[in-house]
C-alpha cells in the first residue's frame, strides 16, 4: 500500500507539534550543560553547574523524595481502604464522600494552602515542619489514589470473590489482604505512580506551605530561576527531569498494560 500525500502531511504536522513541545525541553537541558549559555555551545560542555546545584540544593532533592514517599505511604493507608468502602457501599453518603474527596483537585492549590495555614498555622512546630507540607500533598493526591483503586474495584465483581473466600472460611483481614488487594494491584500501582509523580512536582501548595528549612525541589527551582544564573536553574531542571521521567515512563507503561488487560477480559 503506497502512502498518500495526506499521510505525509499528517506526519509532518505531528512532528512539528512534537518539535514545538520538545525543543524548549532540549534547550533547557543544553543550557544546564553549557559553560556559558549566552556564548553558546562553543563555550563547551560542563557538569560544573550540576555540581553547584548539588551544593546549594541537595537537601531539597532528598526532601522532595521523602515527602513523596511519605505521601505515598499515607495515601496507600488511607486511600485503598477508602476506595474499598466506597465500592462496597454505593449510596448517597458514599457518593458525597467521593465528591468531597475530589474537591482538592478542582480548588487551586494556593487556596488549599491558605486554608491550611489559617486553620493550623498557629501550631508553630507543626507549621514549620515538613509534615505540614505532607498534609497538603496528601490532600491533593489522595483523590488520585482513591479514583484509581475505585476504577479497578468497579471493573470486577469483588463482592462475589469476597463472599466465596468467606464461604471457604476466610475472615475479613484475610479476605482483604489475600483477595481484594492482590486483585486490585494494577489500580494500586497506577495510583502509587501518580501520587509520587504529583508529589515530586507539586509547586502551588508547597510554595505557600514551605519555610526556608522545608524547601522542596520545585520550590527550589523557582528560587533558582529568580536568583541564580540561568545555567544553574537549567542544571537544576535537568536533575528534576532525571527524577521525574522514569516515573512518567513507568506510569505510561503501566497505564497501557492495564488497558490491554482490560481488553482481554
Amino acid at each position, binding site marked *: 500500500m503506497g502512502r498518500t500525500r495526506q499521510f505525509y502531511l499528517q506526519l509532518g504536522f505531528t512532528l512539528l507539534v512534537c518539535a514545538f513541545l520538545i525543543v524548549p525541553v532540549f534547550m533547557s537541558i543544553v543550557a544546564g550543560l553549557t559553560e556559558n549559555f549566552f556564548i553558546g555551545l562553543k563555550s563547551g560542555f560542563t557538569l560544573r553547574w550540576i555540581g553547584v546545584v548539588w551544593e546549594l540544593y541537595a537537601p531539597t532533592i532528598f526532601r522532595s523524595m521523602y515527602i513523596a514517599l511519605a505521601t505515598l505511604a499515607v495515601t496507600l493507608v488511607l486511600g485503598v481502604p477508602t476506595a474499598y468502602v466506597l465500592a462496597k457501599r454505593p449510596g448517597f453518603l458514599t457518593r458525597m464522600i467521593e465528591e468531597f474527596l475530589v474537591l482538592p483537585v478542582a480548588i487551586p492549590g494556593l487556596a488549599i494552602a491558605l486554608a491550611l495555614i489559617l486553620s493550623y498555622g498557629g501550631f508553630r512546630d507543626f507549621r514549620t515542619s515538613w509534615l505540614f507540607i505532607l498534609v497538603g500533598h496528601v490532600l491533593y493526591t489522595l483523590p488520585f489514589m482513591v479514583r484509581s483503586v475505585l476504577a479497578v474495584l468497579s471493573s470486577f465483581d469483588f463482592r462475589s*470473590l469476597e*463472599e466465596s473466600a468467606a*464461604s*471457604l472460611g476466610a475472615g475479613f483481614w484475610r479476605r482483604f489482604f489475600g483477595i481484594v488487594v492482590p486483585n486490585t494491584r494494577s489500580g494500586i500501582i497506577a495510583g502509587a505512580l501518580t501520587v509520587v509523580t504529583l508529589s515530586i512536582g507539586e509547586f502551588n501548595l508547597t510554595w505557600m506551605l514551605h519555610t526556608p528549612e522545608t524547601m522542596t525541589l520545585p520550590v527550589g527551582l523557582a528560587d533558582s530561576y529568580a536568583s541564580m544564573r540561568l545555567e544553574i536553574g537549567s542544571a537544576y531542571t535537568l536533575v528534576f527531569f532525571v527524577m521525574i521521567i522514569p516515573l512518567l515512563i513507568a506510569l505510561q507503561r503501566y497505564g497501557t498494560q492495564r488497558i490491554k488487560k482490560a481488553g482481554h477480559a
Partner: protein
Amino acid sequence: MSASGPGTAIRLVDCAKTFPNGTRALQRTTLAMKGGETMVFLGPSGCGKTTLLRVIAGLEAPDPGGRVFFDDEDVTALPIERRNVGMVFQSYALFPNMNVEENIAYGLKVHGMPPAQRLKRVEEMLEMMQIGELRERRVTQLSGGQRQRVALARAIAVQPRVLLLDEPLTALDALLRERLRIELDVLLHSLGVTSAYVTHDQGEAMAIGDRVAVINQGALVQIGSPREIYYRPQSRFVADFIGTMNRVQGTVRDGALELPGGRIPWTQDAAGTIEVLFRPNDVHIVAENEAQLRGKVAQQFFLGDRTRLHVSGVADRVVVVETTEHGEFTPGQAICLRIDPDTLLRLRE
C-alpha cells in the same frame, strides 16, 4: 471440618428477609432439608430464591425472629466463614490472582491443613473433577465449563456441611448445561452432602432435585418431589410455571365431564361447571372407536423426539397434545383423543 457422612440436616424457622430499603425479599419461611438431600429452589428471577440461599449460607441474616439450624446447632448468629458451607456462584467467583491449584487449595489453607495433606486433597479434587491437566492454568484462561468444575472442586475440597449452588449452570451454553446437569446430579448424590440448589430452569430442577421447592414473590408455594410438582401442582402458579399445562372449562353431568369435543368419565367429586387441568403428554391419540374427544389439528410442531399438536374443537380453547408417534399430521385433519380420568387435575384454590 466435618466428615461428609450422612449429611447435615438444615432447618429454617420463620426466616424472613427485609432489605434496608423496605423490600420484602423473603416472606416468613419455615423449611426442613434432610441430611444428604438435594433440594432445588425454583422460581422466576427476583422471586427470592437467591435470598433464601444466602440466608442458609450466612451471607444474609434473617429478620429478627428467624432461626437457621444445621442439625441441632443454631447457626443464625454465625457469619458465613464459620458455618463451613461450600458455595458455587453463578459467576463462579474464582480468584483471578491464583491458578487452578491455588484456588482449590485456598479453603484448605484457610482451615490450616498441613501442606502435605493439602496437596493430597487438591490432587483428589483434580482427579474427581477430571481437571488434572488444568492444574497450573490461570483461571482467566479457562472455558466456562472448566471454571465451573474448578468452582465445584474448590467448594467441595473443604468437605462442607452444606453445599450451596446459585445458578451454577446458567452461564453455560445449552449443550454443556445439559451434560453437566447429569454429572452434577451424580456428583451430589455420590458425595452425600446436603445441597441447596437455586435455579430458574425447571428442566434443571426436575433433573437434579430430590425435592423441589417452588418460590414465588418471596414465598414458598409448593415443596415436593419433581413428580409431585409436575403432576400434582397445588396452585395455578406452579401449574403454569412448570411445563405446559392445558386448562379447560367443562361441565360435570351424569358421571362424566362434558367438553365441547366429547365426554370423559368423571370419578372425582364436584359438580357443575369446573376448570380441569392436564398435561399435553397425558392426552393420547387413539382410533375412532376408542375416542372420548374429537377435534381438529390446528397446528403441528415437530420437536424431534416428539410432536406437539394444537388441537381445536375439543374444549373451549386450543388443547396442546404431545405424541411420540412418527406419523405426519396436517392442519385441518380430524383427530380422536383419550384422557385417563385419573390424570385430570383440579386446583383447590
